[in-house]
């Protein structure tokens, strides 16, 4: 049996590459791995391909500083070397941040932190509306799945960490329930706030800054 060393690689995806879907991100990273020449385990069979699994991929349109995927190395390499070699081969907009043996199971993921900027709003007024929005006893949103849609109260599933003025708009730092079982996409929150407040920002930018487990430890 060849060696098989699991490795979790953390990367960021910022700037215009936020417009690449998850499927295309996988393809882009697969090609970067190929260019890097890293000794990655490939699936066996008729059409071997590199084996990559992702924890909680970011949605199209959002930036992230905390993406990760798992691969298996077939040769022993230091995490630093993995980061260096992959980093040198990545497309612009992607950065390899660090690598390590996986500790947590992606199923442990419970929360994710986001930095959201709503541009073209009066920050003070919008901040007030935000307070009354979050002060509601229930925040009901319609969550659509492939089969059905149901109403969910997201008030226990979100936490405002910080809010403040930022240029011509409002900056929010928000923690949202995330993971396999309950997942609140920022767009769900933003849609609900927009309906409640009637405020339509000129532009919205969203960046994920952390992925956390139930004990609020960084996913690692």
């Amino acid at each position, binding site marked *: 049996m060849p060696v098989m060393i699991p490795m979790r690689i953390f990367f960021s995806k910022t700037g215009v*590459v936020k417009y690449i879907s998850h499927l295309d991100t996988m393809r882009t990273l697969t090609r970067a791995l*190929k260019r890097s020449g890293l000794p990655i385990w490939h699936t066996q069979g008729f059409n071997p391909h590199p084996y990559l699994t992702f924890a909680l991929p970011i949605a199209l349109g959002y930036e992230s500083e905390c993406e990760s995927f798992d691969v298996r190395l077939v040769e022993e390499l230091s995490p630093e070397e993995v980061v260096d070699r992959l980093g040198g081969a990545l*497309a612009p907009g992607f950065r390899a941040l660090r690598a390590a043996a996986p500790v947590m199971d992606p199923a442990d993921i419970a929360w994710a932190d986001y930095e959201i900027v709503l541009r073209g709003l009066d920050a003070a007024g919008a901040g007030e509306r935000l307070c009354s929005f979050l002060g509601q006893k229930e925040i009901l949103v319609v969550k659509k799945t492939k089969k059905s849609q149901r109403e969910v109260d997201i008030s226990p599933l979100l936490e405002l960490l910080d809010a403040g003025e930022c240029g011509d708009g409002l900056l929010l730092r928000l923690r949202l329930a995330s993971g396999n079982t309950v997942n609140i996409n920022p767009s769900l929150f933003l849609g609900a706030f927009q309906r409640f407040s009637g405020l339509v920002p000129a532009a919205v930018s969203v960046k994920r800054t952390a992925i956390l487990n139930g004990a609020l430890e960084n996913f690692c």
Partner: protein
Amino acid sequence: MLLEQLEQILDKVQKPARYTGGELNSVVKDAANMDVRFAFCFPDVYEIGMSHLGMKILYGLKNEREDIWCERVFAPAQDMEELMRERDIPLYGLESLDPIRDFDMIGFTLQYELSFTAVLNMLDLAGLPVRAAQRPGLAPIVMAGGPCACNPEPLADFIDLFVLGEGEEVNLEMIDLYKTAKAGGWTKTEYLRRAAQIPGIYVPSLYEVDYKDDGTLREICPLEGAPAKVTKRIVADLDKVYFPDKFVVPHIQIVHDRTMLEVMRGCIRGCRFCQAGFIYRPFREKDHGTLNRDGKALTASTGYEEISLTSLSTSDYSQLAPLLEDMLRWTEEDRVNLSLPSLRIDNFSPQLLEKVAKVRKSGLTFAPEAGTQRMRDVINKNISEEEIMETCRTAFAGGYASVKLYFMLGLPTETDEDVVGIAELAQRVVDLYFSLKDKPKGRGVNVTLSCACFVPKPFTPFEFEPQDTMERFQEKQRLLKASIKSKKISFKYHSSDTSFLEAVLARGDRRLCPVVEGAWRRGSRLDGWDEHFSYRRWQEAMEEHGVDPAFYANRHREYGEVMPWSHLDYGVSRRFLVGENKKAHKSQVTPNCRRQCSGCGAAGLYGDGKRVEPCR
């Protein structure tokens, strides 16, 4: 600045990564240090344009130069176009996001006739007048090249200059002259007058076309010292010509998402319907060492897991065996797949099949083009039924159970018997499968017939031929469908109205310019896409301008007729084309260029008398 504007619309469109640039290996330079900014425009969506090898070559070639910055521009899809128009976002280059109306030169590649309205639409989206006469300034010069530039007359009113033939050398000469013009403060007229003196450059405004009463051309007169004949350019030595060692690697999946190597230019076959087979002459090959080296470099710089060996007929490449040997040595270990499109059946040896099979086992695609031997002789497709059957036998024995066969309906002299012959040939392929003892186990055979409508094209021996009418095409499609008796045979065909319009534009003259503009003003954009195509818009535009499409598509032309492209020279002589046409009508075949030189004239393109011997 533009990025902020874009960010407000990109989350509202399909596949936003088409519009952002920033891909690996895209070239970003400092605009302030550039002498010439060039917008390379592909008049179709990103996924199509990014698949085009010619664009990769010319993009790399120009960007090698420190004084030129070449950027890519594609046609936005409908959703993006609507938002761009709504918010006054002008068409921009993907590298800088700067509006291309401020560039020095805008170049279009003309790959098919139905993209002509997309060219106009892109000029309009850029904020430029579509008519050349309404763009009086030196910049931007709007030029075009590519296969459809061999009869560019339906675009003559819109494009300042056309480049005929292969662009590697002439593009740089054109840009250098522009630099001189810019530095010297020339007018556009002065630049175009001088550009017309560069071999391979055709300036349509320097030619006057005179018509006879019957609507045909009387003569084409050059003005202001422009050459009476513009001869296309070729690159004499393909091993010395520029080829990129990097491709821009797209973020989204494109049509041909792989490394492409161009193994040769031209084709030895001389199929009489095939425009590419004539306008890309003379036949020239690259050395297998060059190809292997380029393949390795591109695999390293792109991370692609597939290499495709492209040409008009890759199995005619004389060094195919050593090339495959060289490449399989490292591609297998590197997990890179080799794919070989355009394999002709008559030299598909079991050894070659084994090598291809080692690489990939999907369906096989062959193009017999016609169902009967007589018809195949007329078009000079030198394949016998025995050879077709033998190839299918080899393929089935090698584990293939699905065969796709390409045909054309409406070929000159075609009878109902020839149409029915297509179904009969497919049936014999099905029967062959069931008669074989070593056929793949547990799987049924599937034969797909894909039938295009024949479009007579300039610079082919069939440039004189009338196209079948739409009604006749539909009759033939019905006849063929009714002749298919087996459920193992599936039948796909092209719609006849797009082929009819293609025929009108392919052999059209300058009087079609207002029609192209009229169709565009009526909403014609991405006509190459069935879902966007509307024949009605074209019909209305033709009616408005009193143009009878049958005059262009369905009329027989005399051998002596002045064609709209008679002032353009692609190396192959009119005398040769007439001879081939006569032979077609006598069902006589012409040997391929490797067996015997038939003296088409293309070897004369090497110039300076160096190469007159037959092309090998």
